[in-house]
């Protein structure tokens, strides 16, 4: 076919004239792009995947950065960071009849198609939590993590080319003044509330396992190559997950933060994270952005994800929405003397079934 711009004869299925770079009109034109920042080639000289037809570099593509804002007090950011070509973290947050759902997953980069793994886990878990609310938070989270596991394990992969798709998983449900957190791997949840600030999850990591078994001291283990290796994940090679679950009381105001190691590797102390998140006067989204920006400023070596929920305690009178049937105990204390009281039981059970708005949005 002839190029309409310069009349050069080009193979019929080419998208662009190789003489002048004009689109040949047989594919959808690429979105308008600025000239190539590397070599100055005109915007038209890029192929359908955004590679510059002259220098070959991919055009300054949209960074893999996603922000989700539910409302002023509930938002999240996931960002590819500075060193990775793609974002293999996934973030899902939602509100359903007053119940806050927070999910953060970090695709294991040594596994195949890590991005698909985290995405499958987060979306499967969210779908599960949105469709099956007639149960206790813990049961719903267990169901969600099972769905997430199925979502990941069903992804196609090649036996010979490394580990099957794998991801970490952390999710929280907030109902009234109660939060329930479930996890597998080293993505974390924190409660940021002044002197009550603390890390809620315990990483499923070689370091923690080794120290817990008394084989090495924390200091010794920290220096091992394997310190950051995770011992639980969701993947076809991991079996059905047995998540760790904690339930915490949120009767104080504070911020519930879920994040990946792209953030906590640069600041893992709860007080420090609270300081970095700053005030909530510009909303939860601004806090999440500050945390992500901080990690990027520190080097951004990994993908970074932060989900932020600013909690205002519900008083007895206000408590019209929520809900929580926390069944029999099993709650795992985070430390020997938890700064946040771990509630074992709620007594709102009798009111639960009369909530008129319950089915909405399912």
């Amino acid at each position, binding site marked *: 076919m002839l190029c309409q711009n310069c009349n050069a004869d080009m*193979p019929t299925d080419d998208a662009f004239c190789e003489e002048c770079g004009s689109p040949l009109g047989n594919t959808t034109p690429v979105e308008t792009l600025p000239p190539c920042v590397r*070599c100055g080639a005109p915007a038209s000289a890029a192929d359908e995947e955004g590679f510059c037809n002259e220098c070959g*570099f991919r055009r300054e593509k949209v960074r893999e950065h996603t922000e989700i804002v539910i409302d002023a007090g509930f938002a999240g950011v996931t960002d590819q960071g500075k060193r990775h*070509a793609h974002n293999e973290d996934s973030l899902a947050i939602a509100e359903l009849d007053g119940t806050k759902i927070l999910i953060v997953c970090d695709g294991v*980069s040594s596994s195949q198609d890590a991005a698909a793994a985290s995405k499958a886990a987060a979306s499967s878990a969210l779908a599960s939590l949105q469709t099956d609310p007639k149960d206790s938070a813990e049961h719903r989270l267990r169901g969600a993590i099972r769905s997430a596991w199925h979502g990941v394990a069903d992804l196609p992969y090649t036996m010979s080319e490394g580990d099957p798709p794998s991801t970490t998983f952390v999710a929280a449900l907030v109902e009234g003044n109660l939060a329930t957190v479930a996890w597998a791997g080293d993505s974390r949840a924190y409660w940021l509330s002044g002197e009550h600030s603390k890390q809620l999850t315990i990483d499923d990591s070689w370091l923690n396992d080794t120290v817990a078994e008394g084989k090495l001291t924390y200091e010794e283990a920290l220096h091992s190559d394997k310190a950051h290796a995770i011992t639980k994940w969701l993947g076809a090679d991991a079996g059905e997950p047995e998540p760790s679950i904690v339930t915490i009381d949120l009767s104080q105001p504070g911020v519930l933060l879920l994040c990946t190691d792209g953030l906590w590797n640069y600041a893992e102390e709860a007080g420090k994270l609270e300081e970095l998140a700053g005030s909530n006067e510009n909303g939860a989204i601004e806090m999440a952005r500050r945390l992500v920006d901080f990690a990027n400023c520190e080097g951004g070596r990994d993908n970074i994800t932060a989900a932020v929920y600013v909690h205002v305690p519900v008083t007895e009178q206000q408590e019209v929405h929520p809900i929580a049937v926390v069944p029999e105990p099993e709650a795992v204390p985070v430390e020997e003397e938890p700064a946040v009281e771990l509630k074992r039981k709620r007594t709102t059970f009798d009111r639960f079934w009369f909530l008129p708005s319950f089915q909405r949005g399912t």
Partner: protein
Amino acid sequence: MANFRAEVFQNQFMADGASEVHAIMTVAVDGAPGPVAGIGSGKMFGILCDVSGSMSGEKMHAAKDALSKLVQLLPEDIYFFVVAGSAVGQLVFPAQLATADNKSRAMIAIRGMAAEGGTVISTWLEQALGQFQRQQGGVKQALLITDGQNDETDARRLDQMIENCRGVFQCDCRGVGTDWDVPQLKKIGTKLLGTVDIIAKPNEMDADFKLILAHAMAKSVGEANVRLWTPVGAKILFCKQVSPEIADLTQLGRTVKQQVTDFPTGSWSGSESRDYHFAIEVKPGSVGDEMLAGRASLVVVESGNETKVAEARILAIWTDDEAKSTRIERHVAHYTGQADLAQSIQDGLEARVRGDSDKATALLGKAVKIAHESGNEATAKLLRTVVDVDDAATGTVRLRRGVAKEDEMALETRSTKTKRVQKS
């Protein structure tokens, strides 16, 4: 049009600042017998037979016999001609359709060939070129048979003539006996995109010629090129066919326009698969950068028109994850090994001829080890005619004494045959 598929195998991940991109492209055409592409006016088969003095006797007798049988097998719808080659190339039977009548006349001409005079191969090729040029497009395949070395005074003219013939026809070369020169025929075969092999015993000609003809007749695409697009400033370090046989095409590359180079692949049958290894030096990127380092395609040329029949991308993604950037992709590793195998054999045999036993032992031992590891049993078997293998896994070998010249030449000639990557 036959159905072509291209697939690229590579490790896209590069360490910070790295600039060398390697990729294997496999091109497969599936056997759907469709209308023949690129055959404007059918096929032409040319026979170039050495009739120099050295051929006289049993060799000449066997060659005449085998060529007569070959002519009888020619399909009636193709053109063929015969050149008798000595100090001059003599067109004993000009290109004509392979009708029964013409076959009979060609066989009379073949029987009349007498062995005398020297060996000036450029003149044989010149005659063949004249015949092939009479046909537009199509499959043009020659078979060159010789038993000796080209006249030293013809070296430059031969190089020039090979250049003239490039792109016009393909030429399979067969060396009869053990007095011919392997590098010389390899040069003709490589540049004219043909195979080279030894026919140690004259009575083996018959069977070999049949295979060559069958192969030529199976061709259904007259001419195709591997086309490689590279970014501005990139350098193509090499482009090699690596399967079924190693053939370095780098020097045969033709610049189509800036950033685009064509490498000739000759004709294709309706069902075959070939692998190519590209090495491209690109402008180094930094961590997080992504680059299209190459766009490799197969372009079929049909009476002057080009059709892109398959395309695949070669990417480069810079990362600081060493686990990713240091991994060598399986196909790349395999064919890098096969190229190393061929080179070790060439160098090992050369060292052996020079009398450098230590070096020859080391290189041929290395070859045995690679052949063993990669499962290249055909090459391993050839190697065992030259060395005694104590332990193939470690490449521990001893040079054999009293190696038959023909075994050594067979190894030298066939060392470029590769083993395909095993399916995982």
